[in-house]
């Protein structure tokens, strides 16, 4: 009953959304307030229906109703209640429901709190909002119905991926979605304004709080996602430039630009077309992120539900929303008249400069994320773009941005006094210089500490300048204390918001710099009782408890005692868990933080001789990154609470008042010159460029989706290699006196090709069992994957060399062609050079005995 009512509510919501999309829009066009007024009840009803539907799905999950397919696939009775609830959005269907729920939540918020919006604008905004809702509800109903039923109901469910059974992942999608979907409000406002043909300073004021809410939520969502990746994936890092991470960063960059350009639009009635463009782009990037994650066009550690069929539908939605809005933009934007002029050196100039840098940053991230797709589509091979690219292009963009970010608030509107601003920043210069010198003195002169000192200098510059700007505004050190207090109290909250958010960014920057420059790690095999020194800490491995029981897993828990100079610092207990439903492994990390530095311990595989692989990291200043992000969000929220965002609605029947109450008009002499003076074709055509670029992009996506559905899998790595000839390669040897390896060498005898690397933890566990392979008469060859030759040689010298040949795949190109997801991986190749079997992850004696040897014997016949 409840489940079916949930489905019916969702279906009814589809039709209500259709009404909300059409009727108010017609009303606004005809100036008929009755038609327009359908918008508010419709938005409220839509929200109520989606809430009912989402609630019904949650009910099914909480009561473990296994007659619902979605529950069967993602839940199990022994899952803790918290994850039964948050598991609702762990699946694709559920996360799309959450998406729609948040979308209609924003619609409801406009209906309920948008009393200050002109009815025509509100009707159009809610209409656009309903179009988006209609598209997504239709998507859910047609491709991913969360209420699909199973008869007869299975006895129990398959359980949820253990990686998702974690508080960080449980709570970051709602915030991420509040951000992504929140930018749909800015989008709807932009489209409404384009339809209406009116973009003015008042519009910019109305759109601002919604943008701010979305920005805060997205900032928090991105930070939480990064934090999740930091403490669950156990790799010691917090950002990997993974496609899904990029998908959340791009709207953040564009959204930050939008937030700032809207200020200019509000204050000076200019940069209007640009603001509209950013609003469209920000939401489009959110949609693009959804598309990339869901379609399987790119894979990632964060994507858990992939289906190319759904990809087609989302691409269609993207095409419709982004394509249509860019078309509308090209049509209407040339007519938007600019307002006030400004000098290059002015507040507007600074904001515009940083806007351009932020958008360029978003564009470069987009390029880096999609570049492999372009290269592949043009037939230039398969490549992947890694962190070096992103670091290389983003640093030169961010450095000038932060320099200007500190100065901007000191410049006045229209025409700023650059030298004057610099003069007020004297103290900031001094602090920056001291920071740089101090860093160099403490850390010693090396290339690394030079970079670190510059990063800290930049952070100090921004932090200090923000503080000075604030003290200047309240007149600290210049006025009496009572006066200062008075001023501090009356300073608009938005000014506080800016100061806090900018200081937050400075903290994040310092955190990133510290973690990049001084991260240390140590990987080794330890036996209980062993000690190891990591960056000044002494870590003692006291033992393992193999019988830890959780609600739905069993675990081996290691205990490490960290000490420093003989003083006890922390007891750390990382675990290796084996979940029962689904039967999967997950390791939990132990982190000891003193809010400046994290000591991070990972407990790895046993080596079979009583030892265990252990991995320790010392991550300096990483806590600051997350702390700084929270400070930024706090700044945003303070700004949101500004009185100005609560400007009320006009009283009814006040037609006579407006201009009459204003003082007499001064002569409009100097200031206002529309900056839309250049007429003619060229100007109009410029606004078409985004649309054309977008169409090309869609072409690439369609091509890629086709390949994906034909089985050429994402990340540009063909994984379905079984039954196909081994890819062509010719690799140099690792050891000079031994042969290298090429495709032809694989023929003639059954061969196991083992990809390994000295940096890979599970490889160490796999290594001792490799002689079993050769003992069984299988030829064993190794390919050293993305490794430093020296490290690899040392590894073989330490652990022994079981391989008949070891080749070097320094860039991982051959690995990609084989379809290597992560080392270790091994491929059994028959006498004709055809791959017959693939082992992902370490080989175990069991696998060698039960699978590899029987298969090899059959192939040898």
């Amino acid at each position, binding site marked *: *009953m*409840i489940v*079916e*009512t949930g489905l*019916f*509510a969702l*279906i*009814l919501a*589809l*039709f209500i959304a259709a*009404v909300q999309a059409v*009727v108010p829009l017609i*009303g606004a066009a*005809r*100036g*008929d*307030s*009755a*038609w327009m007024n*359908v918008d*508010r*009840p*419709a938005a409220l009803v839509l929200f109520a229906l989606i809430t009912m539907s989402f609630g019904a799905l949650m009910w099914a999950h909480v009561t473990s109703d296994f007659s619902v397919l979605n529950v069967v696939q993602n839940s199990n009775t*022994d899952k803790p209640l918290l994850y039964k609830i948050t598991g609702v959005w762990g699946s694709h269907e559920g996360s799309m429901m959450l998406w729609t729920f948040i979308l209609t939540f924003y619609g409801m918020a406009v209906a309920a709190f948008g009393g200050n*919006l*002109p*009815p025509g*604008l509100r009707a159009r905004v809610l209409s656009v909002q309903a179009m988006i809702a209609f598209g997504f509800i239709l998507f859910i109903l047609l491709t991913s*119905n969360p209420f699909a*039923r199973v*008869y007869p*109901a299975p*006895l*129990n469910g398959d359980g949820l991926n253990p990686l998702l059974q974690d508080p960080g992942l449980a709570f970051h999608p709602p915030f991420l979605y509040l951000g992504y979907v929140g930018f749909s409000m800015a989008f709807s406002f932009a489209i409404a304004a384009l339809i209406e043909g*009116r973009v*003015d*300073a*008042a519009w910019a*004021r109305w759109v601002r709080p919604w943008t701010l809410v979305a920005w805060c939520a997205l900032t928090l969502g991105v930070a939480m996602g990064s934090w999740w990746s930091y403490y669950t994936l156990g790799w010691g890092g917090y950002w990997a430039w993974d496609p899904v991470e990029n998908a959340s960063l791009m709207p953040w960059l564009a959204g930050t630009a939008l937030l700032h350009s809207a200020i200019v639009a509000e204050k000076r009635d200019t940069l209007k077309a640009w603001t509209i463009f950013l609003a469209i782009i920000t939401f489009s990037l959110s949609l693009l992120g959804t598309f990339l994650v869901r379609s399987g066009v790119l894979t990632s550690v964060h994507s858990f539900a992939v289906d190319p069929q759904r990809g087609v539908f989302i691409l269609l939605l993207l095409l419709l929303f982004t394509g249509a809005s860019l078309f509308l933009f090209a049509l209407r934007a040339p007519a938007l008249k600019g*307002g*006030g002029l400004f000098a290059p050196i002015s507040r507007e100039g600074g904001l515009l400069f940083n806007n351009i840098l932020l958008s360029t940053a978003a564009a470069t991230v987009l390029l880096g994320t999609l570049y492999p797709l372009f290269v592949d589509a043009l037939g230039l091979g398969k490549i992947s773009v890694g962190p070096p690219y992103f670091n290389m292009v983003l640093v030169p963009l961010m450095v000038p941005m932060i320099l200007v970010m500190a100065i901007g608030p000191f410049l*006045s509107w*229209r025409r700023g006094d650059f030298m004057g601003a610099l003069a007020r920043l004297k103290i900031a210069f001094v602090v920056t210089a001291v920071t740089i010198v101090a860093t160099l003195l403490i850390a010693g002169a090396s290339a690394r500490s030079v970079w670190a000192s510059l990063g800290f200098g930049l952070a100090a510059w921004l932090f200090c300048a923000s503080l000075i700007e604030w003290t200047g*505004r309240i007149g600290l050190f210049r006025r009496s204390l009572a006066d200062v207090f008075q001023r501090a109290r009356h300073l*608009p909250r938005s000014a506080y918001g800016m100061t806090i958010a900018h200081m937050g960014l400075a903290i994040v920057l310092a955190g990133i710099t510290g973690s990049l420059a001084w991260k240390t790690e140590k990987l080794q095999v330890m036996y209980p009782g062993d000690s190891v020194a990591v960056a000044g800490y002494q870590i003692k491995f006291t033992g393992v408890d193999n019988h830890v029981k959780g609600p739905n897993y*069993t675990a081996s828990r290691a205990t490490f005692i960290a000490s420093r100079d003989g003083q006890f610092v922390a007891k750390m207990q990382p675990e290796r868990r084996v979940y029962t439903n689904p039967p999967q492994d997950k390791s939990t990390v132990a982190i000891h933080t003193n809010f400046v530095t994290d000591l991070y311990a990972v407990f790895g595989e046993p080596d079979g001789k009583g030892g265990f692989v252990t991995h320790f990291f010392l991550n300096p200043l990483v806590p600051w990154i997350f702390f700084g992000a929270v400070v930024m969000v706090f700044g945003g929220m303070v700004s949101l609470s500004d009185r100005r965002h609560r400007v009320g*609605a*006009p*009283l*009814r*029947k*006040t037609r006579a008042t*407006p201009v009459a109450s*204003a*003082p007499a*008009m*001064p002569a409009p002499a100097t*200031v206002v010159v529309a900056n839309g003076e250049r007429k003619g074709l060229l100007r109009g055509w410029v606004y078409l460029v985004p649309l054309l670029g977008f169409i090309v992009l869609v072409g690439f996506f369609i091509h890629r989706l086709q390949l994906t559905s034909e089985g050429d899998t994402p990340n540009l790595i063909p994984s379905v290699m079984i039954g196909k000839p081994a890819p062509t390669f010719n690799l140099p040897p690792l050891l000079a006196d031994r042969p290298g390896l090429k495709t032809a060498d694989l023929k003639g005898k059954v061969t196991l090709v083992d990809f390994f690397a000295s940096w890979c933890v599970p490889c160490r566990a796999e290594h001792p069992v490799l002689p079993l392979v050769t003992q069984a008469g299988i030829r064993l060859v190794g390919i050293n994957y993305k490794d430093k030759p020296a490290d690899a040689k040392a590894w073989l010298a330490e652990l022994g060399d079981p391989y008949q040949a070891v080749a070097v795949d320094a860039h991982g190109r051959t690995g990609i062609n084989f379809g290597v997801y992560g080392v270790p991986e091994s491929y059994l190749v028959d006498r004709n050079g055809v791959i017959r079997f693939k082992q992902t992850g370490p080989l175990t004696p069991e696998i060698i005995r*039960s699978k590899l040897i*029987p298969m090899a014997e059959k192939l040898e016949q």
Partner: protein
Amino acid sequence: MYWLVFALLTIICVSALLYPLLRRSQSTAASRADYDNVVYRSQLTEVAHEVERGVLTQAQAHAARTEIHRRMLAATAVERKAAASPKGSRHARITAAVVIAVLVPLGSGLLYAALGSPDLPDQPYAERLKHDPNVMIAAAAHRLATDLESKPVAAGYQRLAEIYFYLREYDRSALAYQRAVDLGDGSAEMWSQLGETIVLANGGAVVPSAMSAFTHALDVDVREPRARYYFGLAAAQAHKLRRAVAIWRDLEKDSAADAPWLPVLKQHIAAYAKRGGFDPATITPEPPVLPKP
């Protein structure tokens, strides 16, 4: 019941949409310029505040005010142009209301008929635990499994394996048999049960791990019938039909006349011989050949 709830829901939602359309007295809202001017007036106040705090010079404040006043004028000018737009007729409103009142329920009903399963009631686990015998058994098995984790006994795992087998959870059943064998119950019967469960878990394919279980069974008791049957099936799956029939005939020869498997076995022999196009009687019975350890 279902339809009543759905109808009620639809009526409430649709009437909320229709209310603004059908309301007799249409309130005349404030004009767009009024809304704009609220913002602009607040901007003027801000300028005044900033002058007070000394952030803006008089000249700057003057320029800012000029700009804001200009916006106010512009807003009012647009308003005058827009004021001429036609007001909607009551006739059109009623038409729209009728269209909504018909299409929304109709569309929802049709789409639900296509996607919904009105015959299926909710089945919360707690309820099923009271009424559905299989769920009760599964829950009991789960408890047994938990108990056995701390006190492993071969007989307990055998019982658990049988329960899972009954529930058709062959993967779990095979794991439980494996545990029973590991705990020392290495009887031929147990090994061949393990093998059979593995075969069922693999959709009927006699996979290598099953073969190794059957081999163990025959190591213990070379006459164990179930293992011999599956050795024959393995041969058949490898397209060695004569060999399969030979093994089965060997089993047939050793079986008592009232052995429960005999009818099935005879059927198999006949069917596979027919498929191979030979007379089963011409095949000499042969025992399975165990792989050398």
